[in-house]
């Protein structure tokens, strides 16, 4: 089963900034949600979301962790 990397973001309280809290490998968006929640639910997050790393567009550098992976 081909898997993609998904980055996981969350905020603790309404109004807090989203933090990058980690990543998971998953074969599709639905399992990415499940895996992210089960992997990172040690805190009582107000909101958690995932984004496929390939969808992230690097802005200011070409050697960052997300560079070269997103749409251009």
């Amino acid at each position: 089963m081909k898997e993609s990397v998904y980055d996981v973001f969350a905020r603790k309280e309404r109004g807090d900034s989203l933090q990058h809290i980690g990543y998971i490998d998953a074969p599709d968006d639905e399992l990415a949600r499940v895996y992210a929640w089960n992997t990172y639910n040690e805190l009582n997050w107000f909101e958690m979301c995932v984004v496929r790393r390939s969808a992230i567009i690097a802005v200011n550098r070409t050697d960052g962790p997300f560079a070269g992976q997103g749409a251009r």
Partner: protein
Amino acid sequence: MSVPLQPADLDDTLRADVRRLLLALADTKRILGIRYSDWLLGAPSLEAGIAASGMAQDEWGHARLLYALLKDFGEDPVPVEHDREPEAYVSCDALDVPAEDWADVVALIAVVDSALTVVLEAFSEGRYAPAGARAGKMIAEEAFHGDMARAWVRSLAGGTSESRARIADACNSRLPRTLAWMAPDDDAAARLAEAGIMPTTDELLERFADRHANMFAAAGVQVPAPNREGWDAARGRGPGHPGLEAVERARGDLNRELFVE
């Protein structure tokens, strides 16, 4: 709107019926947690194993909350959790033996976990007030189990001919007895429906089919009729019982001398 029922409102017969339902839910969650825990390592991916771990912990936490509801009847839940023999368990028949492979685990999530949630939701919507007060968080956590089931059934069904056959076989073998457990067709179930504590047998089966038929159809599986052969009305499940090894783990036998309440 119907009036909520408190534990003290129930006569002895109805109290025994509610107790049977509570034990069916709690025992099933406890044994299901053990079946999930067998796959914390050895799942198809690290993330799938972590998900199994999370679901196992959810089920054990829910079981603890459900056993605690026995206190409303003046019953100490500790011996219920730690001293019963396998023959006294009311867990769903489909959990009597461990899962053979990951497709079997997925079938447990899709079939047994889904059936559990149908029962729990129905119980929480009925007139028995303590169920409504305690079930909300459990049902919210179960939403991720449902997502896991749908995604993995779809994935296996859309994989190889082998994976499609395995998930179909696993679901087909687990469904008939699970449906009998989920929607009993006996006097106790009729009394619970009459009292407005649970839906009728047919309504429970319809709820399950309405909610999950599409998931099973993706694997080429039709929701079958319940298999009620050998139904044990005293316990509220089919014949047999979970294996001793699972019950020893459920009771915490190995660490009994370290048990401090």
